[in-house]
């Protein structure tokens, strides 16, 4: 799972409530080489919930600035850093509210619910 995708996921257990986002992240960040695509990352950053990304990066001990730099769209060093914020292969997402854990195995998050959670 790309750590950037953490931004898109929330707890989906029925009745979990308004505090179902952001999820906490657990695991070891693994760097995977990928081609830098400036257009992609600029677009992502214009939509991203930065505080959630920052929290996720703290959870897995990645060093990011605590707030979005004002010049972020022109700050190539920062954009490259975000682009390289990388993957979790083994670990989990954790809901602070209802304590549900969504395991991550082989880089795939499991968000299948049990019958009593739907």
């Amino acid at each position: 799972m790309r750590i950037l995708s953490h931004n898109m996921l929330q707890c989906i257990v029925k009745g979990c409530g308004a505090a179902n986002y952001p999820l906490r992240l657990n695991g070891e960040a693994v760097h995977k080489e990928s081609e830098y695509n400036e257009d992609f990352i600029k677009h992502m950053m214009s939509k991203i919930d930065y505080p959630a990304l920052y929290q996720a990066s703290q959870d897995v001990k990645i060093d990011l600035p605590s707030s979005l730099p004002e010049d972020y769209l022109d700050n190539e060093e920062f954009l490259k850093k975000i682009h390289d914020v990388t993957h979790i292969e083994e670990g989990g997402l954790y809901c602070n509210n209802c304590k549900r854990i969504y395991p991550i195995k082989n880089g795939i998050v499991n968000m299948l619910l049990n019958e009593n959670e739907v």
Partner: protein
Amino acid sequence: MDHLPTPDTGHLSSREYEGYVYDPSEDTFLFLDALSEDRASLKEMQPRTCVEIGQSRCGSGCVITFLSNIIGRHCQYYAIDINPIAARAAKETARRANIPLDIICGDLVSPLSRMKGSIDVLLFNPPYVPTSMEEYLESIDTSASEHDVIAAAWAGGPDGRCVLDRLLPIVGEYLSPNGRFYLVTVEENRPKEICSILKKQNLDGQKVIDRKARNEHLSIYRFTKRVTE
């Protein structure tokens, strides 16, 4: 027109996946042909978020990998599959094609509720084969000792609509303002009725391509949001 390569899914014949993952078949290839037909407009719309729903079927990851060959790398790609083995196979297909695909194991679009209103291209090849309700329920009962995982990829219940009918009511709210939804159907699914259901969500349906393969009459439909003033 350049020929786009069919994604490499050679790993599906390995012991890890054989018998657990639906192999690309006529419906898959027709799906690729439909996307290929639409390639100019797909490129032009510059999608940012593309999602394939598997429901055991995207298993191979073949369709979204093919789509990424058309659109390019400035987009985020997600595949969701209810079957963990199929999800793993999709990951391998994406790895072989070197595309940035995130795979989530889940039911339909349920993991992506934060993406409402932002999916530009949504792909779905549902279990469309008409079966009895019993056969359908058996196919999704993963607790059965002799559970046939492949059956879950095709058994669609009465009219082949059991799985699709769970997604149809929410398609519109997940798509972005210029988003589109591609769907595989057979005649027995009553595509006209599907079109009229989606019309109520301001989605206009059009057949992109159809083909008779063995005993099936397959069609790929494209649904696009009607521009409202």
